[in-house]
């Protein structure tokens, strides 16, 4: 799988390339800023773009904006944002259009090579990978929050759904049976007033509702 990396720290870029190559990716281009990244994506049409949030020249959210630009111009390009700190607003921006093929992870997660590669692969395959810290921010209790109706366990399940895990993954993480997970998820759908339709679609809607609520 061909990947493009945008990261302004050369030291880290080298490490990222090694990690991705270990995971079976082929890094076809690397960039130090958003402009270089967009040019590289336009040229190579990669199957994964790994992007640092803070890049020159502004050092705030250049990466997020570049990622949204990529999603707009080349829909379906899987994008993983990396950041020293994760902010749910950036995640919400990115996820508000479409949750598939999106990841947002803390930089230090790269150090756990196997987990990181698995998360990136999940995104490249059209899944979602949100850092638990983003999910923690999303789960923050706010007044007038429709999520307030959920029980703590249901919130946990919803958080893991937002991280991009399957029912089996959630069951494993919470050490419960898969049928218990399915029951929780059904309760979540009910409490969030999501119409009975294609279950996968509802899953995305639930996560979106979750993001939307957190942005109020």
């Amino acid at each position, binding site marked *: 799988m061909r990947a493009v990396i945008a990261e*302004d*720290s050369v*030291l*880290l870029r*080298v*490490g*990222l390339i*090694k*990690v991705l190559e*270990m995971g079976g990716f082929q890094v076809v281009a690397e960039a130090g800023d958003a402009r270089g990244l967009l040019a590289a994506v336009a040229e190579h049409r990669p199957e994964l773009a790994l992007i640092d949030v*803070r890049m020159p020249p502004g*050092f*705030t*959210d250049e990466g997020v904006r570049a990622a949204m630009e990529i999603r707009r111009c080349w829909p379906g390009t899987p994008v993983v944002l990396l950041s*020293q*700190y*994760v*902010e*749910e*607003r*950036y995640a919400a921006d990115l996820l508000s259009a479409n949750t598939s093929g999106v990841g947002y992870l803390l*930089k*230090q997660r*790269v*150090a*756990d*090579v*196997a987990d990181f590669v698995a998360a990136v692969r999940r995104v490249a395959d059209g899944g979602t990978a949100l850092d638990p*810290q983003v999910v*923690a*921010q999303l*789960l*923050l*209790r*706010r*007044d007038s929050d429709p999520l307030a109706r959920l029980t703590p366990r249901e919130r946990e399940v919803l958080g893991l759904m937002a991280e991009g895990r399957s029912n089996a993954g959630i069951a494993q993480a919470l050490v419960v049976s898969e049928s218990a997970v399915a029951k929780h998820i059904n309760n979540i759908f009910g409490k969030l007033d999501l119409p009975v339709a294609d279950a996968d679609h509802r899953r995305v809607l639930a996560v979106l509702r979750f993001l939307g609520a*957190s942005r109020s």
Partner: protein
Amino acid sequence: MTIPAELRRTVLRAQRDTGFLAAGVLPHLALVPVWAWAAATTARTGNWLLTVSVSAALVLLGTPVLTAVQRARYRVLIGVDVPRLTPTAPERRTWASTARWLAATRPWRRIGYHLLLGPLLALLELLVLAVAAACLAGAIAYAWSWALPTGIRQHWFGYLTQLPACTAAGLLLLCALPWTARAVARAEARLALGLLGPSRAQRLQERVDQLAVSRTDLIEAVDAERRRIERDLHDGTQQRLVSLAVNLGLAMATRPDLPSDAREVIARAHLEAKEAIAELNDLVRGLHPAVLEDRGLDAALSGLAARTPLPVRLRVDLEERVAPDVESVAYFVISEALTNATKHADATRAEVMVRQVGELLRLRVTDDGLGGADAAAGTGLTGLSKRVGSLDGAFHVSSPAGGPTTITAELPCAR
């Protein structure tokens, strides 16, 4: 013959002061011809409307020139600096702005000085100068008498009694001259400072404006410094540590064949690198998060609340973003309050409210901890109170023993 230093100084000072008084006569009399002409012409023609308007115009035009002349005289001749009026910012001439200008600069004080006080001061100056001249003349009268032909000198009635007495009186008065000249010069300087310079209210206003600007600059400088440090750490140390952790992770992933003790050392180093990153992240985040600058208080606070190891209920009601320095102080206050709740208060939950009420940003952080926090004793709370004070905000801590602790702050946020 050496002249004693004290005497020389007194003579020099007397010279300087009388020179100063002499230089004052003309400018102090400068407006006399104006009203003399006005009075004479009015008496002759009865056309007071013309004379009043012409003389008023001349007075108004002459006042700034004369003020400048007097300032130069005070500064050059006796080293007294009469502060210049700061030019008021150019604004559209309206009745209100004119009234403000009149109230702030009080031009009638300067006009009064030149028109009414000037002639009186000139009289005083002339008097002192005349006395000084008379003293000098008297003091040397006896010496001059020796220049007269012997016959006249010997036959002039009273030569023996009057001239020496004249000289003695002149010398005596001459001794008093330096003090008199000095007293008059000082009195003039005091009057000029009071009437020609800016009024006390204006000076205070200027000082307050200056202080406000310098304080704002200082706060901005401190914030810029925090941002710079955050950026330096982010671009440098944090990236290096992450890179180190990644390489250690790679070492473990690529070399499963290493002996177990080597693997264990690498695993420990890997863990420590990750912990160091987490610690550094927390530290750096307290300085100034980029998201605060980028997305504002609400976004930054949700990150802060999520990282706090307590359940935090967050409510932020802001219609629009407030000024960056207000955002920065608000973030800092809430961040410290949550840290205190976690570290010292033994709290199990916290609540953060941020609300904009008119031109005030109200913050409230409540926790259910032990209470007993003292704003007067705790350095952390004192720092918060100072930081809030730097924006003219109000800061209040309510923390009875046994809890709960409520910290409130109100920050003015008019844009």
